[in-house]
Each structure stands twice: as structure tokens, then as C-alpha cells.
């Protein structure tokens, strides 16, 4: 895939100059074309100097009236307009697809209130990129606006999308994407991540995928599925009509490690999504596994005479090192983002608890001390939290610091997996996959496939 994106000149100018109405800015896009700026410039040279000192000291967002949104709140009201197609005004479907994908992602973030397209006054093609009629949007009470355009030459698609502050009537940022027609959704996910970056300071998690195991084909067989975060494009990965379990992503999001019974076992397999090829990497029975952040190793729980222990393997299945040597159950290895430690679940104390091992030294310490059943650890990409499943009158997702301490409940459910930006988790709850913010305040259901959707895994950001 060949995606290149360049910031539009205007947005770059904006960010660099800490723009305000008091400064004369060369506005290539956005903003009224009146003589108001010139009038203000005469008055405001003095103010401008002071403002520059104050304004540039603060963050860009502090100058606009959009507050940094928090999950579970009312949400920033945002309108997402279908793309204009200046060349031909055709391909409505494409225009709407981009907007729908962006809108759905922003809704899932729990930070926005997306204004219904039915309320839009302005048709997408009724605008020039350089002249936005903001009153068409402020009348809908939108504080933020996404507008853009696309050009299609055969299979070659170019999309330009911009984010505007409606009240302040200015552009906050923009992106240009180029690629194949089939990549329009990926472009939209990327732009949704940028919208989140413009408004919260952190890039969003939507340019990624979620894998899970499900029996939605009917009966007890489980297959592996992959979906975009919104759950609207679920693709079946295995067709083995047996039990395929516990998918785990490679660091590039191109491969899945999972457990399959297709050769008895169960055994660990690696599946390459692009080629559709699948290979068993060990003839040993395995229960779970996960990829190291640098992609060079996999940690796998392997059977040794009915007992499970953790091992390090190469992705081709070469045995590198045995990590645990105890008679208790040892499963569910989860790498720290710097690749130096493994969190895992062990029954060595008599009931399952979360432990952390320093991989080089092998030093292992217990992390969870509350509750009698703590399993399924996953380490946040931010490095500061380990989420896990706790059983205490039903399953709950908890998080704890890697050094231990107090455990905090996030929400009900099991099998947590962190988003690439570390602000969200996916989990399963009553056979459905949910996405929650890490404080548990925002919760969105992602799947409703008619079966039991289990063990979700959130991929890293896609390249």
C-alpha cells in the first residue's frame, strides 16, 4: 500500500504562527474574506505583540473554544460532511463512505457528538475549499467541522480532508492522502486519528484492527475473525471448522499468532493476512502466545507433560529459552512495550494471579494480591498499566501498575486488550466485543454477530 500524506500549507501556517484574529495571516483556506482582519491589524499591532507572547506560550487548543474532550462527557459537537468531488460530482458512495467512516470512529471515541447528516444544510459540493460558509454549520451548533474533497483517476484516489473550528472560523488542520480506491476506508481511519490529535493532542487508535475468535458460524467450532475497530467490516480469517483460539497480533499488524486444533494439539500457528498462508510453528501443545514488540520473538505457553510453562520461540518456532519451571499453570504472556518484561498469569500460589518477569534475569514477582482469580494480563502501550480479568461475582476488567499496588476496576467483562494509543481497551462481555475508554466512562458495543465473540486482540497501528 502506498499512502503519502502532506499537510496542506494553510494548516501548517496556522500551527506555526499561533494564529489569532489579531495577526495578519496568509490564509490559504478558511476564514472570512472581509476587511476585518486588515482593520484589526491596524488596531491590533500592539495587542498582537502581547498576544504573541501569551498566545504562543499556551497550547494551540487553549486559544480555540473547543475544550479538550473527556470520554463519557457530552462530547464536542462535530459535523462530518461527505467529500466534495470537484472534478465530476459523481461517486457519491465514495464521498459518503469517507465521511461515514470518520463519523463512526469519532463517535466510538466517546469524545464527540456527531451531528446527523440529515441535519446538514449545505450540500458537499456547495463549497470551495478556500471559502467555508461557517454559518451553515454554527446554526447546527457544531463546534467542529470536517470537510474535504476527492479526485479519482481510474483506481488512483486522492483525498484532501480538513478540520475546522466553526466558532473561530478557521482551519485546525488538514491532510492529503493518495492511494488506491480500495483504501478509502483506511484513509478515513487515519484522518479520524488526526482529528483526535488536533483536538486532544494525541493521535487516535482507529488505523488498526481487532482480531477475535467466534463461533458465529454456528455450533461449537470457533474461527478467527478480523475487523476494523468499528466492527462494520468483519472478515473471517480461518476456515478450518475446528477450534481456533486466542489470536495475537504481530507488531506490524500483518500476522496473527493463534492456537488451533486443526492438527490435534492444540498447536500454535502463524497466519499471514496478506497471503492467506498459515503455518504451524511448533508440534508442541500450546495454550496462548504473544509477539514481542520488536517482532523477533514470541512468548508461548507450551505443554510439558500436562503442565504449562512459558517459553520464548522465534516466529519460525525455534526454541530459544524456557522461561518458567514451576508445576503450576503458566499462561497468557503479555509483553511490556519496551520488550524487557513479561506479564503473565500463573497458578503457582494456588490460584491464578498476575506476575511480571524480567526476561533477561528471569526475576519474577507477583503483582496482584486482591481477589482470588486474576488472569489475561495485557500491558498498555503507554507502559504504565497492566489490564487483566478478575473474577469476583462475574468478570471485571481491572488495571494495576506494573509495580503492583492498588487495583482499579474499569468495567465488567473479560479479556482486555489495549488500543495502540493506550486510551482504550476492547473486551468481551456476554459474547459481544466492546470498546471502553480506560477510565471505563465510555463504552461502545462493536459486534453483534449472532455467536460468542471472544478473546479480542487490538492490533498495533497499521503502517
Amino acid at each position, binding site marked *: 500500500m502506498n499512502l503519502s500524506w502532506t499537510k496542506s500549507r494553510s494548516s501548517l501556517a496556522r500551527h506555526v504562527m499561533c494564529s489569532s484574529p489579531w495577526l495578519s495571516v496568509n490564509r490559504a483556506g478558511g476564514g472570512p474574506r472581509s476587511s476585518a482582519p486588515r482593520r484589526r491589524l491596524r488596531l491590533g499591532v500592539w495587542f498582537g505583540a502581547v498576544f504573541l507572547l501569551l498566545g504562543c506560550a499556551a497550547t494551540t487548543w487553549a486559544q480555540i473554544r473547543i475544550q479538550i474532550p473527556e470520554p463519557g462527557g457530552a462530547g464536542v459537537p462535530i459535523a462530518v460532511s461527505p467529500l466534495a468531488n470537484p472534478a465530476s460530482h459523481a461517486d457519491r458512495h465514495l464521498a459518503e463512505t469517507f465521511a461515514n467512516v470518520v463519523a463512526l470512529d469519532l463517535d466510538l471515541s466517546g469524545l464527540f457528538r456527531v451531528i446527523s447528516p440529515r441535519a446538514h444544510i449545505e450540500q458537499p459540493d456547495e463549497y470551495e475549499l478556500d471559502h467555508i460558509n461557517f454559518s451553515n454549520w454554527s446554526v447546527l451548533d457544531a463546534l467542529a467541522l470536517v470537510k474535504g474533497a476527492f479526485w479519482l483517476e481510474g483506481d488512483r484516489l486522492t483525498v484532501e480532508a480538513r478540520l475546522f473550528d466553526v466558532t473561530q472560523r478557521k482551519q485546525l488542520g488538514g491532510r492529503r492522502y493518495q492511494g488506491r480506491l480500495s483504501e478509502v476506508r483506511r484513509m478515513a481511519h487515519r484522518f479520524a486519528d488526526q482529528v483526535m490529535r488536533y483536538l486532544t493532542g494525541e493521535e487516535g487508535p482507529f488505523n488498526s484492527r481487532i482480531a477475535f475468535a467466534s463461533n458465529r458460524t454456528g*455450533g*461449537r*467450532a*470457533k474461527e478467527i475473525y478480523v475487523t476494523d475497530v468499528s466492527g462494520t467490516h468483519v472478515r473471517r480469517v*480461518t*476456515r*478450518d*471448522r*475446528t*477450534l481456533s*483460539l*486466542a489470536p495475537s497480533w504481530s507488531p506490524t499488524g500483518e500476522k496473527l499468532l493463534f*492456537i488451533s*486444533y*486443526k*492438527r*490435534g*494439539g*492444540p498447536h500454535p500457528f502463524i497466519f499471514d493476512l496478506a497471503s*492467506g*498462508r*498459515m*503455518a*504451524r*510453528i*511448533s*508440534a*508442541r*501443545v500450546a*495454550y*496462548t502466545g504473544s509477539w514481542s514488540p520488536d517482532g523477533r520473538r514470541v512468548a508461548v*505457553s507450551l*505443554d510439558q*507433560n*500436562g*503442565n*504449562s510453562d512459558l517459553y520464548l520461540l522465534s516466529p*519460525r*518456532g*525455534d*526454541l530459544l529459552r524456557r522461561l518458567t519451571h514451576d508445576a503450576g*499453570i*503458566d*499462561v*497468557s504472556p503479555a509483553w511490556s512495550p519496551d520488550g524487557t518484561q513479561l506479564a503473565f*498469569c500463573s*497458578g503457582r500460589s494456588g*490460584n*491464578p494471579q498476575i506476575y511480571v518477569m524480567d526476561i533477561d534475569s528471569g526475576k519474577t514477582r507477583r503483582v496482584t494480591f486482591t481477589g482470588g*482469580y486474576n*488472569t*489475561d494480563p495485557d500491558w498498555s502501550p503507554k507502559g504504565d498499566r497492566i489490564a487483566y*480479568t478478575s*473474577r469476583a461475582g462475574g*468478570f471485571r476488567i481491572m488495571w494495576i501498575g506494573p509495580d503492583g499496588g492498588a487495583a482499579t476496576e474499569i468495567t465488567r467483562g*473479560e*479479556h482486555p486488550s489495549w488500543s495502540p494509543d493506550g486510551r482504550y481497551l476492547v473486551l468481551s462481555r456476554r459474547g459481544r466485543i466492546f470498546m471502553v475508554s480506560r477510565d471505563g466512562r465510555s463504552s461502545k458495543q462493536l459486534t453483534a454477530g449472532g455467536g460468542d465473540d*471472544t*478473546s479480542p486482540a487490538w492490533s498495533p497501528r497499521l503502517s
Partner: protein
Amino acid sequence: MKYSRLHVGWLTSVLAVSLGLSACPKRTPQTLVGSGSSMPPSSSRMDESAIEAGDRVQDRVQSEEPEASPLEQIYFDFDSFALSAEAEQILQMNAEWLKNNTDAKVEIEGHCDNRGTAAYNLALGAKRAKAAHDYLIGLGIPSERLSTITYGEELPVCNELNESCWQRNRRGHFQVINR
């Protein structure tokens, strides 16, 4: 295809040796394109055994019928793989049957109820199967007639949310695999 004792003994020793040599580098993993393509011809008996094992699992997974077996099931306490006195009695009866049916091979399955989490339950099911396996070995059943497999919580026999159903799922099941 019925295995002769020699066949089985050879196969078992190959498996045992390969497990014991697990520290050695693995041979190149097989590459399968999708699941519909046929396997390339293989000279290794272990490959054939793996395919048969896979087929056997698929039959177990796909079958909607109750798990019929001439051998009785045993049941486990919550979160436990310990053998109760009743379980030991059943295992003794099963051992008798095996001694009277010397050609039979049995795969011992460990199962769990769904009140645990999936990965931990896979490992717990393995411990349950191993507990039953070791007890039968202790009663004199040759190890080459026994194999174990875990199904964790993946093959429940019932789905109700009550102790009666959960108890039925926390089982060791003895599947005769060569008849």
C-alpha cells in the same frame, strides 16, 4: 486403519523422542494454503498422525450428539484438578474395561465450565486430563494406549447458568479412538 502394537510402539517412541528433543531446533514448519488444499505427500508418520488427530478433533467439535463412550466420565470440583474418591472409583472401573479390551486406545479429554477465562481453562483442562491419565498408568494401563487432550471450556455439554450444568461440564471424558 487398525494399528498393530508394533506400529503403536514405534509411533509412540517417535513422539516421545521428539518431545524429549524439544530443545533442538525445529524443522521447517509446513506451509498450508487455506484449509482446502491437500497436504503434500509426507514421509513422516507424525504428519499423518497430526492430520488424523486434527480430523478427530474436528469430529468432536462438529458432533452435536452426546459424547457416547463405553467408559464413564469423571467430574472435578470448581477450579480443581484433584481426583475425588468417586472419580478414583470410576477410573478403576475404566481401567478394568481397558484391561478387558486390550486393543482399545483412549484419548482422555479435560474439560472446564465457563466460569473461568478461556486460556487458563485450557491449561486447567490439561491438568485434569493428566490427573486421570497418571492414575490409569498407576493402575497398570500401558501409556501407549492413552493420550490426553484439553478442550478447556470450548466443548460444553450444556449451557445453563447453574451449578448442575457447570458440574457436568467440569469433566474428564474418555474417548475410545480406534474403534
